[in-house]
């Protein structure tokens, strides 16, 4: 995994392929690599859909190895949704296959010539780009039908649906899963629109002859890998909770906490939560012949996914995740799992971010386009987006644009990106991360990764008054480091609670790359990644005034606790002071 594949879509005579070594980017992977390239090579003031922007697709540092949970893939660019730097990452098979083909990154750059659409094919023998008119306005599942015979069970596909092709700001990039389905997405920030702007519709990865990434120290790596898998298996979250119910296990708990954004963030509890909870969903999946425990990539030992079948027992979609069930469920006052599953399928098929689309439809509901709770109406709106009707193009541009179009203040966004499934008035620490993340409102930007073990930025007393800002900063640093490894963020719980599991992760990196990292080194790495991103955003024109929640979160109390977001601007500004 020591090469960078560059596709210049603006080259005369058609897209040009070059393969180069890592150069100055050696030692980087995943988010670290995407953010380094975007920061160094993309003019921060460029238009996100213009020729100066670049789309960088990079497996993590440990992707392609035999370590469990290491196959995530990062996608970076300047975001058309936030106008800042973006890294969105995805599960599925793409990260493992690309890494095993020897590539640390694919960089798609230049200005598209004409209106042609292209398919990029990558194999152990190199890469080719071919114009293909047959893929125009194809959905992701249609692309699967067309290309699965090529990528088969050993390869993978990275693609955009109709939303990306139309360059809508809520467009995602799909990555095929173990079954070859386009169910995993680099969802956030409109990365699919940037891929669409380059005219690349699909990347077909031929895994034939791809080899497992060999570590520098095989025996040490094997020992660390064993300890790593053992740590994940014994933890109550990674070993029990997630496998049994998936991420949707959170619905009941967040709802009970009064932090479950309902009806476009107007209240913190949804009366229909038990009908769409992870517990109910898992039972329904099993009853209909689906599965409630399944991995999205080979090498996954947590298996937080599953498959959702129709009443007739036919596959509809992968197990909808918590964020999806919330955004299209409680946030829209929809309590029907069949409706939510159908919308999840449409998100995957048209290539749309489920969080952004659920938040957007809820805004449209508040605007009176359709009533809250109207499941069929929500499905119809999804089709409007996927087909590109005038209304659909507004909705596909995200919650902020939709609120503006309908004259509403209530756009639950930061830096133009919709908030995920935790109301920041109830859990204020998450609000600090929503506000100050380089990515816009993002629940994964400051994950609960072992900051207490890593002691990022020194020991912090979480009960101290100033704890919120310091905690958020440390979480963001630690998350940036983990996002660079290719590890699924769900490893965080085992790493958080079990020092020996955190050490196993560090040992995996050291054995793989002949490094001598310690906890401080991991923290320094995370800080470096964040510095790339903050530097880019500053040059793109972001100021502390952008590190804020919408003012109505400070003014309008959230039931049942009747709390507002009362972290001061001054404290928010200390996060990265």
């Amino acid at each position, binding site marked *: 995994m020591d090469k960078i594949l560059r596709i210049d879509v603006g080259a005369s005579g058609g897209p040009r392929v070059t393969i180069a070594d890592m150069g100055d980017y050696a030692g980087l992977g995943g988010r670290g690599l995407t953010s380094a390239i975007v920061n160094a090579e993309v003019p921060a003031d460029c238009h996100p859909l213009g020729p100066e922007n670049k789309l960088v697709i990079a497996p993590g540092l440990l992707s392609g190895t035999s370590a469990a949970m290491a196959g995530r893939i990062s996608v970076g660019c300047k975001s058309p949704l936030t106008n800042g730097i973006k890294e969105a990452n995805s599960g599925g098979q793409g990260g493992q296959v690309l890494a095993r083909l020897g590539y640390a990154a694919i960089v798609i750059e230049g200005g598209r010539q004409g209106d042609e659409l292209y398919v990029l094919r990558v194999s152990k023998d190199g890469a080719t780009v071919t114009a293909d008119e047959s893929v125009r306005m194809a959905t992701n599942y249609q692309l699967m039908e067309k290309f699965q015979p090529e990528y088969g069970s050993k390869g993978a596909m990275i693609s955009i649906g109709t939303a990306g092709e139309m360059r809508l700001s809520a467009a995602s990039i799909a990555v095929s899963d173990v079954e070859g389905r386009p169910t995993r997405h680099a969802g956030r920030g409109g990365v699919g629109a940037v891929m669409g702007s380059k005219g690349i519709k699909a990347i077909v990865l031929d895994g034939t002859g791809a080899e497992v990434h060999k570590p520098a120290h095989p025996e040490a790596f094997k020992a660390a890998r064993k300890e790593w898998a053992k740590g994940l298996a014994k933890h109550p979250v990674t070993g029990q909770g997630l496998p*049994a119910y998936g991420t949707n296990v*959170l619905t*009941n*708990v967040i709802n009970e906490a009064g932090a479950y954004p309902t009806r476009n963030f107007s209240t913190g509890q949804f009366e229909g939560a038990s009908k769409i909870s*992870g517990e*109910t969903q898992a039972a329904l999946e099993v009853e209909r012949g689906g599965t409630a425990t399944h991995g999205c990539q080979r090498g996954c030992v947590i298996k937080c996914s599953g498959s959702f079948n129709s009443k007739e027992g036919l596959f509809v979609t992968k197990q909808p995740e918590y964020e999806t069930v919330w955004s299209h469920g409680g946030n829209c006052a929809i309590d029907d799992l069949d409706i939510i599953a159908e919308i999840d399928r449409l998100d995957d098929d048209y290539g749309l971010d489920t969080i952004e689309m659920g938040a957007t439809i809820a805004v449209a509901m508040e605007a009176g386009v359709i009533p809250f709770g109207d499941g069929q109406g929500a499905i119809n709106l999804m089709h409007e987006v996927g087909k590109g009707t005038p209304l659909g193009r507004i909705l596909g541009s995200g919650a902020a644009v939709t609120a503006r179009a309908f004259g509403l203040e209530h756009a639950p966004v930061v830096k133009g990106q919709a908030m995920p499934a935790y109301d920041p008035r109830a*859990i204020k*620490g*998450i609000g600090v991360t929503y506000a100050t993340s380089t990515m816009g409102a993002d629940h994964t930007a400051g994950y609960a990764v072992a900051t207490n073990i890593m002691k990022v930025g020194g020991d912090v007393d979480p009960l101290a008054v100033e704890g919120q800002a310091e905690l958020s900063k440390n979480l963001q640093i630690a998350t940036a480091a983990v996002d660079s490894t290719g590890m699924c963020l769900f490893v965080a719980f085992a790493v958080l609670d079990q020092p020996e599991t955190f050490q196993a992760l560090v040992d995996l990196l050291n054995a793989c790359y002949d490094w001598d990292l310690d906890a401080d080194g991991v923290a320094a790495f995370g800080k470096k990644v964040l510095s790339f991103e903050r530097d880019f955003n500053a040059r793109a024109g972001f100021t502390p005034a952008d590190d804020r929640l919408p003012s109505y979160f400070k003014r309008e109390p959230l039931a049942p606790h009747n709390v507002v977001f*009362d972290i001061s601007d001054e404290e928010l500004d200390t996060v990265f002071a």
Partner: protein
Amino acid sequence: MARSQFFTLLQQGVGVPGKVGASVREFLVQDLGLDPGYVDGDLQTVFLDSQPVDDFDSTHIRDGCVLALSGAMPGLAGTTLRRGGYYARMRDGITHASDLPSTPGSDRCLVQLKLFNKPLADLADLLAVRPLRIPDVEGAIWVAVRLNRE
């Protein structure tokens, strides 16, 4: 009653008698009959009237209160809500503060008990053999649930 139906009911909450003035720990161990090791080890996320509970001993039940039991949860929010967790500070605006036992008006009170995820799977059978007060068209009724074989 079908098991799936009972599971839905337990997520929504059932009425369970408790002793007035009992701490949450006393209710869980003495009234529900849970193993103290299970209470401390497995009930990682607990809410009293929608407020996260950190200390079982300094928090008390009262008539009509809602007690929800859950295992350890994923995500930053899940970790934040965990009992006594490192990140508890991040939700201090909604945390259940220590309180005093309520003054007994009678010996017994009714606790609305909700079970989620691991406790739901672990404790459903225990609850199925005791009198429960469940919602009914006429308000609420006491029942002894008999689960069907599935």
